């Protein structure tokens, strides 16, 4: 394994050997490179002032994704091109269309969030731009602006593709691709810095072997959780194993009626496939975090970190997902709900890691809905999330029911008493109301800064009502955001 980190900073190759493996990209840019255009607004991936764009080779082209530099560790740049706000101007000083559109539409006031917005818009621009309100909102959900009220920025987003395309930079795209492809040779990265270690293997076998040897290690995928251990809790991580370069963990395919999601698959990469098979889950996935978070975070990480909230675990549990764990060469499988033992405790052995999540494609007759409740629609941590999967038999009685909530207990947890109260009963308002009372048996939620226990309980019952209404009245308008799929 190579003992240096290699990437392109704009057009310039970088080879780092003496680097703190958990130094954030933002600190690196500001303190080492003196590139101070990217700002720190929160150091937790919530405000987007630090947004940078990563270009990666996919096939024979580059894909561009916006990420939060504040929670991304420098060694994860390996094999990528890092683009910052300093890279956008042409060599003659002309502003990039994204920048010019922001200027012309009065898109900046205090200007502190602006570089981040520019980079999010730049990623959108590279993807062809957008006119649709929802697409623009999605692209900008991870960028907070406190001055403009967003209107001028949305206008800039719409207008940016009207400008003449920028001249190609000093390093043409073909050259970037060739350079990055060259970096992908070899079997990964292994760093040691002041007694601390970092591994980025490229194969599943190597990952399993390294982790078995370093059971003390923290497995790093998108860093949307672990990044905050460093920036917020100021923890020093002794050994880190990055799984983002393991090819086998990037699997996303349907095999025998089961959607297999590799542990390294980001939310964003999974989004289209999930929307296709589980539109309701797709909406939860869209709202799980901003584009920057979805571009980095993984469903595998969302499961493995054992958050009591989720957001994907409760949905996956309701869908009957199974978890594939690996330890060295040994593989075992379990129902996802069995993985969550207690708060902060999962059924995972030392050296064992999440390899894959298997989601059975839903039968056409399953009524499935999921609802995320939070103070703000986008980029907010859930107060309560309910996922419901119910089938009826030929006579209209409940044949099966899987209900799972996040935010209601120490782990994502099924509402077994409520489910039992539904089984065999006709799918009527009375059944649903009677079953809802069992929520109080299933859950004893907490009061915290997101919501009170009372609200959590009340809204959980109401979500069952909503589920029932949506599945019994096809004309019902019931959603403020996203699209309800009736039937």
């Amino acid at each position: 394994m190579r003992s240096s980190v290699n990437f392109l900073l704009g057009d310039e190759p970088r080879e780092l050997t003496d680097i703190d493996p958990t130094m954030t990209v933002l600190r690196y840019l500001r303190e080492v490179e003196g590139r101070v255009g990217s700002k720190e607004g929160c150091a937790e991936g919530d405000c987007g002032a630090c947004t940078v764009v990563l270009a990666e080779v996919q096939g024979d082209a580059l894909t561009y994704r916006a990420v939060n530099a504040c929670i991304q560790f420098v060694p994860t740049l390996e094999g990528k091109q890092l683009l910052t706000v300093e890279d956008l101007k042409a060599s003659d000083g002309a502003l990039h269309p994204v920048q010019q559109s922001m200027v012309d539409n009065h898109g900046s006031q205090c200007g502190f969030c602006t570089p981040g917005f520019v980079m999010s818009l730049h990623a959108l621009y590279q993807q062809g731009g957008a006119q649709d309100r929802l697409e623009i909102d999605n692209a900008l959900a991870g960028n907070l602006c406190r001055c403009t009220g967003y209107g001028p920025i949305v206008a800039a987003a719409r207008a940016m593709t009207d400008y003449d395309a920028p001249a190609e930079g000093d390093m043409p795209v073909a050259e970037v691709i060739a350079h990055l492809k060259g970096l992908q040779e070899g079997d990964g990265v292994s760093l040691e810095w002041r007694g601390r270690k970092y591994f980025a293997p490229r194969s599943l076998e190597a990952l399993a072997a390294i982790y078995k040897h370093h059971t003390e290690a923290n497995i790093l995928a998108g860093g949307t959780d672990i990044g905050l251990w460093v920036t917020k809790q100021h923890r020093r991580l002794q050994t880190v194993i990055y799984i983002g370069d393991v090819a086998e963990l990037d699997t996303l395919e349907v095999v025998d009626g089961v959607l297999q999601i590799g542990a390294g698959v980001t939310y964003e990469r999974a989004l289209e496939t999930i929307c296709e098979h589980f539109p309701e889950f797709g909406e939860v996935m869209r709202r799980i975090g901003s584009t920057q978070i979805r571009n980095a975070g993984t469903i595998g990480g969302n499961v493995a970190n054992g958050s009591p909230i989720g957001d994907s675990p409760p949905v996956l549990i309701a869908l009957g997902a199974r978890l594939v764990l690996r330890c060295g060469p040994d593989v075992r499988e379990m129902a996802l709900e069995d993985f969550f033992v207690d708060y902060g405790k999962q059924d995972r052995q030392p050296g064992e890691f999440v390899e894959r999540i298997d989601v059975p494609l839903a039968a056409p007759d399953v009524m499935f809905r999921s609802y995320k409740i939070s103070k703000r629609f986008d980029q907010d941590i859930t107060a309560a999330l309910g996922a419901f999967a119910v089938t009826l038999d030929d006579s209209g009685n409940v044949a099966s029911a899987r209900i799972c909530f996040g935010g209601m207990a120490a782990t994502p947890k099924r509402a077994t008493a409520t489910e039992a109260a539904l089984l065999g009963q006709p799918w009527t308002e009375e059944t649903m109301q009677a079953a809802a009372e069992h929520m109080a048996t299933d859950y004893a939620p907490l009061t915290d800064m997101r919501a009170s226990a009372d609200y959590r309980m009340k809204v959980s019952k109401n979500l069952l009502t909503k589920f029932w209404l949506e599945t019994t009245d096809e004309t019902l308008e019931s959603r403020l955001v996203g699209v309800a799929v009736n039937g």
Partner: protein
Amino acid sequence: MDDVVAADPKPANIRGAVGTSRIHDSAAKHVAGEAVYIDDIPLPQNCLHMIAGMSERAHAKILKLDVSQVRTAPGVALVLIAEDLPGVNDISPTGTKDEPVLATGKVHFHGQPLFAVAADTIDLARAAAKKAVVEYEDLEPLVTVDAALAAGETVLPTEVLTCGDPAGKLESAPHRRQGKVRLGGQEHFYLEGHISLALPQEDGDVLVHCSTQHPSEVQHNVAHVLGRPNNAVTVEVRRMGGGFGGKETQGAQWAALAAVTAVKTGRPAKFCLDRDDDMIMTGKRHDFIADYDVGYDDDGRIVGLDVMLAARCGFSADLSGAIADRAMFHIDNGYFLGDLKVTSHRNRTNTVSNCAFRGFGGPQGMVVIERIIDDIARTLQKDALDVRKINLYGDEGRNVTPYQMTVEDNELPEMIAMLEQSSDYVARQKEIADYNANSRILKRGIAMTPVKFGISFTTTFLNQAGALIHLYTDGSVYLNHGGTEMGQGLFLKVAQVVAQEFSIDIDNIKISATNTSKVPNTSATAASSGSDMNGMAAQAAARTLKDRLTGFACAHYGVTANEVVFAANKVQVGDKTFTFAEIVNQAYLNRVQLSATGFYKTPKIHYDRETFSGRPFLYFAYGVAVSEVKIDTLTGETRTTRVDILHDVGSSLNPAIDEGQVEGGFIQGMGWLTSEELVYADDGRLLTHAPSTYKIPACADRPEEFNLKLWPKGRNREETIHRSKAVGEPPLMLAISVHHAIAEAVGSVGAPGHIVALDAPATPECVLDAVDRAKSSVAKKTVRGAQ
């Protein structure tokens, strides 16, 4: 960058004339990452990085503060405790002497700085700070306003404004109602947190780059803490990454600690608060409780009112006195209230000391009266807009405020009529009622609310400003004034005023950082007064110079003053034409002074705080908004779908900048009243101290349809700078319409006459509670609702 010419252009063939929608002077730098904020200044050699050691109790005696281990920790250059400060350990802005830089004896809120560490890196400073040993003796903390109210704890004496015979009027009123409203506070969430970089100078002086709206106050406070005269300290601020009032007083602490460190060590010192530390250690908008008792007639006209306002001031006074005063001054909003009594408690809590925030108490006062109007409309089952209209200020007999100022410039009746029509208010109201009758889960609501906001500092002496202009021999202009730039476009507006005055392209004018050594003793850039005051001061300086140039031209060329005309980058002198640069250079060669200061003090204002009467404001700024929302009655979630705004900025100096202020202010107000919730634990810890838990509006929260118009007839009746009006704060309060639209939607599931009593912020939880109260007011209760 071509200028878009406003509807009513000023005749001047120059770039950047007054009234044109010139783009923000820093825009091209903002988008390229080239605009320099303090954290971006290349680090001086040996720079120290600072962090505060914070109290872990909300209220306690400090039995022991042992920082010996901190002092010896790796990389630590200096540790400061209160006793180490050379001068005064106080940064209270109004002389209340209740706000220590570092706590002594007692701690008064969870997170209060006990000591400061300066080390070679921020990581070393942070690690060192953990080594302090602190022992406390716990005292009972007052965490909520209710608790402070019950305990009678205040930071300043309670004030009472009485007008006429409210008790008698309440007794004899045809209708009477009591109610209570609770309003949350608000975190500023400027994207750039507080930061100071102190550079040691010779003789023990110090230069501080500080992100502050009030460089002069920071200068004076730093000098006091250093025990040095003001002239030993220079404070400079080029720009802030947002301020919103949060940087009016709150920057002094970090500036002082960095300055003391720089002076003591001879090394530069940077104090940069990270987001959590900033949210924990710096003040916020005051949350309020209000109790009201209102009497009204059959038409909904208010005849008597008794209001109690209780504000969370936190542990010290800061600006709470003036903020609570402004809440009292805005209890009328745009309405003639007649006989009333307003009691204002300034409650002491064991939480961070609250401070200025866009609107400065005005929003809280307005929310209360708008809630009262809403209650009246509901009890009488009248349309709230009708009740609003009938209570508006009017002619003789209904045009005097509770503080005895005559409203001479009331634009509201006409503005309301115009917006009612352009927003199609009546037809939409009907359509919404139909929708609600047929929609089981989702309900919609629409509401219109007005804003009348008083412009001037209510502390009269603050209404003064200074400017400094140099003309160089090549005709380029250097502009400086006491106002600070926080994104609001003040620097640009003032430069436009100067460009207009000299009739030269704005490109010739160098905008420069605010600096206490250039213009002294300035007031905060606050109270929306920035362009009003600094624009006038700069105009005065420019006129002085123009008069000198004219005088020179008259003497030199033997013409009369009216034969010297500055127009479109040229100066016409009799039958000769010179460029501006030529005439400036000629003046220089003839020994004419080419540097001038300008000064402005707001006229007409006077105010007697003892009797709460006078003319505290030069004029009022007005606005009206119609908001429409959709709510989910099963979850309490809400969404603002359409907003129509008509806002009065007088004769705009820069319509694009002003529209940006209106739109941004509105969304910020919407956040305050909907998703932004500050939550304190029972022990006084702030639980929402980062954007992961504190939710300001995101892009998708912007209403789908946003129709914004500046009041076409806007022209300040007072002689303000080019007849413009202040715009910083007033638009925030337009968002009260969102809150009322939500209340309307909630009310649609209630029985006729049901009082919705929606508090703020209207989070999903708050709204669902209101929905459930409304539902239970209806006798017929089924899940499907009234079909």
